[in-house]
């Protein structure tokens, strides 16, 4: 069975940060169409701080995710601080004592993060938020593994589902967050959080696939 070594996989968080920082302007631009245009700034600030702290330290994935969760939660504020803060903290907790991460652990990790976000944000699929990326991604992963697909294949399907989930937000009316006051005027644009979530899941999945043994 395919597994990833937890120790030294902390670099995955550095790639995540790079993807977010590279897309900083794009994320703000999307947010600016129906929100206040700061999503890229907020995200890049948080992920940038973390990358500087963990780069080259050869941390375990658990430790790197814990650092990420804590920084987002305590130093970023806004909507993303608590939401992604909780998600990454929950991720970290699930793999804290695990040396080798298999698909089952990975799934437990995803679910814990998802539950954390739902508890504090109380959004639902279809509200035009990052959940429209995260929920179908988790479902696709679970479905693949339950169908007996390999960890590697399941991760590939996760990314595809995340991206189509992200794209689905174009046709949604925002029901939560700043954009919700726009009503129908929020149609026709991507949700910023859904877009950053797809980036995050892609880096996490590809980093994991690269490290599968």
């Amino acid at each position: 069975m395919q597994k990833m070594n937890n120790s030294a996989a902390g670099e995955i968080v550095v790639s995540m940060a790079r993807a977010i920082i590279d897309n900083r302007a794009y994320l703000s631009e999307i947010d600016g169409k129906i929100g206040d245009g700061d999503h890229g700034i907020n995200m890049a600030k948080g992920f940038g701080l973390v990358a500087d702290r963990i780069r080259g330290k050869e941390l375990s994935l658990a430790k790197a995710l814990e650092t990420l969760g804590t920084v987002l939660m305590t130093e970023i504020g806004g909507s993303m601080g608590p939401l992604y803060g909780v998600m990454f903290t929950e991720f970290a907790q699930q793999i804290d004592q695990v040396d080798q991460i298999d698909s089952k652990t990975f799934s437990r990790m995803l679910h814990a993060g998802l539950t954390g976000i739902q508890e504090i944000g109380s959004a639902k699929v279809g509200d035009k938020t990052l959940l429209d990326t995260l929920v179908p991604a988790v479902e696709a992963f679970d479905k693949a593994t339950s169908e007996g697909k390999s960890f590697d294949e399941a991760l590939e399907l996760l990314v595809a589902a995340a991206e189509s989930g992200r794209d689905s937000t174009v046709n949604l009316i925002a029901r939560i967050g700043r954009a919700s006051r726009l009503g129908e005027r929020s149609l026709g644009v991507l949700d910023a959080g859904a877009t950053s979530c797809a980036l995050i899941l892609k880096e996490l999945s590809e980093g994991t696939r690269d490290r599968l043994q």
Partner: protein
Amino acid sequence: MKKFMNTAETMVAESVEGFVRAHEAFVVFGAERKCIRRRHLTLGKVALISGGGAGHEPMHIGFIGQGMLDAACVGHIFTSPTPSQIIAAIEEADTGAGCLLVVKNYDGDLMNFEMAIEMAGDRHSLDMVVVSDDIETSRTGEGRGRRGVAGTLIVEKLIGAAAERGMSLAELKQLGEGLNRRYRSMGVALNGVTVPQTERKTFALGPGEMEMGVGIHGEPGHVRQPFAAADAIIGHLCETIADDIAAAPGMRALLFVNGLGGTPPAELYLAYNSARRFIEERGIPIERSLVGTYVTSLDMQGLSVTLALLTDEEIALWDAPVATAALRWP
């Protein structure tokens, strides 16, 4: 984008420092500048704490002082403060009777304040009042409901006065939430705003356009309309508000015309004159008034109208002394 600023990164910190220096008699920075608090706290009084993103000045820091808030936290522009800021404020301001956190209804604020409560709740008695006076967001008919906008000032003033009189945490929360069906705000913008860090306008309006139903985060409103005469604009705001508010016999009206940052006093007074006429024509005599720039959206040219229907007791709390940088009466 022309603003009086040095760098987008330092703008909030410099502005808040200026505020604290200008009002040294009322306020001091908390440790590590995580919050701003009253210079003199009252032992055994429930502490009132609020906070939110920057860009809404003088709210909330301008409301710190005798008769209103005990401490406030400022986030980045339009970005909620962090739980650790909020916890710092709780630790500075709690003098034994616990803290009531006044939170504007908005996911970012709610989540950060809730998280702070969770993290500090074992060491302090804490509770939360959620302000949700904005009219337009309710139009979607679901979700988290109305935002907290200019009505926040009214909640903070009333519970601030009540706290000064020794009311308990539970009573104060009830007082704050009791207003819920009895106050409404609605805003209009004649232009969008530029968030300094992005250097982009949140929305751009042509010379003949306006946005009806805007909030205080620079987002577009409910609908874009042709620009019109003040009476037409204000009439629409007043009607929408008055239709949505729960009028009850014996209630006494407070009318608050608030500038969003780029609107000069003369226009606010003209709008107040118009609003007062419209509201009184609906049979609601105005007994208390406030006109000024208190709850802003950066430099937005625009205003909001808030109507609150108060009990005799609440009117007495409104009239009670207040000594803050932005609101002051004996």
